[in-house]
């Protein structure tokens, strides 16, 4: 019996109006057990109103080595920011 119990990622919505945020991980055999454990481990002090659990193996993550090709193209596109445009100072409400 040396098979690892599966790993799950836990996401908590701290209150309605806010997004779920990743808060940690835990091991559980199935979704129900992951949910119960998440409640005990991550919401002992009213930290949440909603929990998502996702088995870690189902998450596809970008690799840090690919950061360049993924994110660098955005850095030279300054025209996507409002400060790129030169307008007269007297102009109001813009």
């Amino acid at each position, binding site marked *: *019996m040396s098979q*690892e119990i599966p790993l799950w990622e836990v996401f908590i919505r701290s209150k309605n109006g806010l997004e779920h945020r990743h808060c*940690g991980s835990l091991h559980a055999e*199935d979704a129900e057990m992951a949910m119960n454990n998440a409640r005990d481990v991550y919401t002992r002090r009213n930290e949440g109103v909603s929990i998502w659990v996702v088995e870690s193996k189902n998450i596809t993550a970008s690799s840090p080595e690919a950061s360049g090709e993924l994110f660098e193209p955005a850095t030279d596109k300054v025209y996507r920011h409002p400060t790129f445009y030169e307008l007269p100072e007297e102009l109001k409400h813009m």
Partner: protein
Amino acid sequence: MSEAEIKNLEAQFDAKIARDEKIEPKDWMPEKYRKTHIRQISQHAHSEIVGMLPEGNWITRAPSLRRKVALLAKVQDEAGHGLYLYSACETLGITREQLYEDLHSGKAKYSSIFNYPTMTWADMGAIGWLVDGAAIINQVPLCSTSFGPYARAMVRVCKEESFHQRQGYEIMLSLCNGSEEQKEMAQDALNRWWWPSLMMLGPTDAASTHTEQSMKWKLKRKTNDELRQQFIDQTVPQAELLGLTIPDPDLKWNDEKGSYDFGAIDWDEFWQVVKGHGPMNKKRLDDRRNAWNDGAWVREAATAYAAKQKLKKEETAQAV
């Protein structure tokens, strides 16, 4: 990878930490960084888990329901803290099973303080006040350590930990305001826990082999001696408020340096305990191993149940 390439990556890595950028699990890191972090984070996790044992000793004998629910909640928090830390450690590519195995085989260490016995109820007060107090001093700087998952776990731990220290101090306060006998119990607990608490903050800077590298990686943000001085300076007035005497005849306020001078620490005792010869080392590890072995059927049942449910679902899906 060639040696020059590794050197280059290491230089980039060091610069990143110097800029206060965090390191995340999938980022490239020097092998030594990974190993050191696995060692420290797992030691920390084991300390939380073994730390439940001395207190578990008193749950059934807590003097009132109020004390009992508080102690239960504290011990449950420690289980939680152990889990946050194990999870953080696993992101470095070691399995939970391996971590447990290293604890149970005696290969991995945990805090020396938990190898002392809890003889009276007053020890629950002294542990909360002193041991959690020293732990907080150690942990607060770790909230800004360079490894992201560790830093995030520490933020959660620190948020929860302050109740631990307050409940301990309240126990001491009640005893000190009680009968002569109760006050003696409190003093006796302070006498036994004071020196081990000072040792808990680690060997002196001169004797500490990891300090320099750990400071560079922000795995340590203050040296052991600095942390110890901070602990003493903040704890002495708290003892005065209780009307208790710190068991150190050399303890004296030093106006010039603006902090307390204190007596020599018995480092032989510390190293004896670290090497496994403390009063409770054997019992603590036996208890951990028994808990793991006696719980095997629960883990097996959970696996079997999950497999059965999965099969059932698949059968139902086929039938439709």
